[in-house]
């Protein structure tokens, strides 16, 4: 977990594809380059989708974990 400073938390729980990605894309634009955002989603497809989104945009997927049906992603803006 480390002591990463999260600048913005985006709660995409309950939202279906592609809304978690769209919310993340909106959210990451509000922080500066190098800063972190955290996204929480319940869409099971989001695990692969966030990896694809990170690799396509160049934003880094720094950390991810899941618990109780929730998926958490920490992303660093490029």
């Amino acid at each position: 977990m480390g002591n990463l400073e999260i600048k913005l938390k985006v709660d995409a729980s309950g939202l279906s594809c592609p809304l978690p990605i769209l919310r993340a894309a909106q959210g990451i634009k509000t922080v500066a380059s190098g800063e972190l955002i955290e996204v929480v989603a319940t869409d099971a497809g989001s695990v692969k989708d966030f990896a694809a989104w990170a690799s396509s945009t160049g934003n880094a997927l720094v950390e991810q974990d899941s618990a109780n049906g929730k998926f958490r992603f920490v992303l660093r803006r490029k």
Partner: protein
Amino acid sequence: MTAIATAPDAQAATDGAVKTKKLVIVDYSGELEKTWATLILASTAGAMEMETSVFITFWGLQTFVKDKKRITGENWMQKMMSFMQRPGVSHRKLSKMNFMGMGPWMMFKLAKKYNVASPKDLLEMAQAVGVKFIPCQMTMDMFGIKGSDLIDGLEEPVGAATALQLMTEADSTLFI
């Protein structure tokens, strides 16, 4: 990730150097489920920072007529055509199981229950992430649809040659 640092497209990206991918979607059919797929892919591609263009032609153009516009066209045939297929992103029909509007009604109910964004919301999100929607001039002429009948924020209308140029320069093209 394949880093192509020398590509001019990649210069906008600072540390995570990623080549900008290009996607073209030809929005042809105008049916509810296909419009939905088009707008899911277009909005997500925009969010993935792909350069995304949607060429809107034939029945697809009806989706981009303002929801509140009921009849378009100059002559009786064009007016009749628009009367028979209510224009607007919120009035698409299913290609199967339409049942006089029962099918779409159930689709929208289910979408709401499972927090699936509506085509109208997805269209707004796609426009917000810079997806270009390009109307087909020939379709506009044939159906008598004027620029003022269409929603705001669309590109200038073009023809088949421009559409083909976009398609051949794209990394991927979809015809929906």
